[in-house]
């Protein structure tokens, strides 16, 4: 299961991957990482308030899965949601402006980091309560099935959420009603400061689907190609109406749980070791090199992304604060 850069590069089949697809995935992962780095920076400057949970290290999960989706699929996730929004092609400007609490943010500055949405892009949040998005995701899948379309709902949650009762209530109903939902457990090893070993009984979180007759697979979430392959398989299964599927992504977050997390529960060495050996972006970069993409091309991608992020950061700081009249809007529709 454990792969590092060398095993990834040695794997010949990966060399046959479509180069444009790989480049796109690389670009998107890099966009997420640079976005998050900028968000961390703006937080440090006091431009972003409240909670801010960064996705750095986990980029391969959402980008790999997104590459297997089709138009009309829905996505729902927790509060560590910036990466998912960017993967859905939501505008980094609008996401960043929400982080700064401005009127051009996706929620007009009323949701913040943890609560953003884009119906247009099929992104249904951004939910601040641990595991609350899991039944909601099953419900979105219900709406796909009810409407008779072939779409699926990708429902992301972390290893911490995996101990919440509502996850199992959702597993049960999703399996009973054969809902087209893919439960993606982003197992980054720590629910806030508590390691999976200290919080979760049993060997693997994905095993818990067995009791409900739900198929599952453990995936190296640091390897975007493995993620994509697993997602294609799971999504295909769901689209055929066979019911839910669980993907447990073994991944890692480099930053703290939130900005205020001193991360005393793990060593610096642990983080460094994973960065050195399993970084999903470095992995794909090496692969691209091996496939003949020259450094110049990668450099150009880097420059392009930096400029997108710089624009987003400027936009997010220039956008005005929401008008006081917004205080009383959007409470109910009528």
């Amino acid at each position, binding site marked *: 299961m454990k792969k590092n850069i060398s095993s990834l590069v040695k794997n010949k089949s990966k060399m046959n991957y479509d180069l444009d697809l790989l480049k796109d995935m690389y670009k998107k992962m890099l966009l997420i990482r640079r976005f998050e780095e900028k968000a961390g920076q703006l937080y440090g400057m006091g431009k972003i308030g409240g909670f801010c949970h960064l996705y750095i290290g986990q980029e391969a999960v959402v980008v790999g899965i997104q590459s297997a989706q089709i138009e009309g699929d829905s996505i729902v996730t927790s509060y560590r949601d910036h990466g998912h929004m960017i993967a859905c092609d939501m505008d980094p400007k609008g996401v960043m402006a929400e982080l700064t609490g401005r009127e051009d943010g996706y929620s007009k500055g009323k949701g913040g980091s943890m609560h953003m949405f884009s119906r247009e892009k099929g992104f249904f949040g951004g939910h601040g309560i641990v595991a609350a998005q899991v039944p909601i995701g099953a419900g*979105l899948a219900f709406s796909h099935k009810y409407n008779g379309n072939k779409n699926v709902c990708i429902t992301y949650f972390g290893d911490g959420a995996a101990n919440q009762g509502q996850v199992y*209530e959702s597993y049960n109903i999703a399996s009973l009603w054969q809902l087209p939902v893919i439960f993606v457990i982003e197992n980054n090893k720590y629910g806030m400061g508590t390691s999976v070993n200290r919080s979760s009984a049993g060997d693997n979180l994905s095993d818990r689907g067995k009791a409900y007759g739900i198929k599952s697979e453990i995936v190296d979430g640091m390897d975007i190609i493995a993620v994509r392959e697993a997602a294609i398989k799971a999504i295909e299964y769901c689209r055929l109406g066979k019911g839910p599927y669980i993907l447990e992504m073994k991944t890692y977050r480099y930053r703290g749980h939130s900005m205020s997390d001193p991360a005393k529960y793990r060593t610096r060495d642990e983080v460094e070791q994973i960065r050195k050996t399993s970084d999903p972006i470095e992995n794909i970069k090496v692969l691209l090199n091996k496939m003949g993409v020259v450094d110049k091309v990668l450099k150009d991608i880097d420059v392009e992304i930096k400029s997108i992020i710089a624009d987003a950061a400027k936009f997010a700081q220039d956008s005005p604060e929401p008008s006081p009249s917004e205080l009383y809007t959007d409470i*109910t*529709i009528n």
Partner: protein
Amino acid sequence: MTIEILMPALSPTMEEGTLAKWLVNEGDSISSGDLIAEIETDKATMEVEAVDDGKIGQLLVPAGTEGVKVNTPIALLIDSNELPHTSIKTIADKPYLEKEKITTELKIDKPVTLEPNSSIITVREALRNAMAEEMRSDKKVFVMGEEVAEYQGAYKVTQGLLDEFGNKRVYDTPITEHGFAGIGIGAAFGNLKPIVEFMTFNFAMQAMDQIINSAAKTLYMSGGQMGCPIVFRGPNGAASRVAAQHSQCYASWYSHCPGLKVVSPWSSKDAKGLLKSAIRDPDPVIFLENEVMYGQSFSCPDDNDFLVPIGQANIEKEGSDVTIIAFSIMVGKSLEAADILNEKGIKAEVINLRSLRPLDIETIINSVKKTNRAVTCEEGFPFAGIGAEISAAINENAFDWLDAPVKRVTGKDVPMPYAANLEKLALPQVDDIVNACSEVCYKN
């Protein structure tokens, strides 16, 4: 030796039932545990078992009889060597068997006046009609909840929906309120219009996080993108003798939260009109029913498009001396109190709130400006209750018109006791309303 087999009480709120079917004939020998009859209660059709051995001597109540009171003798059990008694036909003139007397009108104190283009139906039927009509006209409307489909509803409110609409529109869920409330909310985010039934609102506490944090707040947090057109409905408040965990009014809990609409019908007309409005509403609506009211009958408009707008109270009875503000079951009690007060020379105006959020403050204030006195009525706890909110609203908007402090009639500030006498003491009674009104009129 002859033993009377009595009409059994098969649910906490059952006062009478329909003897649907006899499973034995006169002269049949039976043993303890044998099924003898099917009885339809306010909740379900139940099979009744014999508790003694013997022979059916006589069937006293014919199959199909409605409104048979609990503890009425329904059959006679004789020793197995005795001969059966005469046939049931000979006792058909006994008062409790006369079908025409067991009409719906008898279930409430006053006969119901049939209004034009209306039918006299129970609150239960009104709720069912509202759902069925909306499901016919809008394919996005579906029902989910515990026992709503094959069982036909724990309180029979969804009876017949599965038959008419099939299992793609009516879903039995497992007993997992948190999970299925969230699934309903997700479906609403996905542009469907779910009606989520809670068997009672007591169990909705398991789903509170989803209702408040997901259904109520997401529209705001998404800057207006994520509407959640969902109805959460079910019985609220005290039923009868089911004690603290199953007898609570949640009106003030839900009304506290911006983003929710909260309605609570009293009559069949309210039930139909409000439920249809709730289903058509683009926002999450908490629909608080009352189990005791399900079997009560009222005149209800037949019109498929009859709606009671959310946020509009109704003056059920006009008066000039004191305003009684009530909702749900307390409206009926307030009307009874108004009749008693009338005899004492106090003319009470009774407002049926129908909606708790948004609250029709205008109707309340206009009435108080006329009567100069107000009494609020609710089954819930007094502390931070609906009455407290109304009292504050009256203070803010009509202080100068008041001739007496606003008085609250509420459930007592205790968990609901089980003992019959204590339960009665804990719940607001007609006398409490009469006394409160007399006090604010200084006619004690």
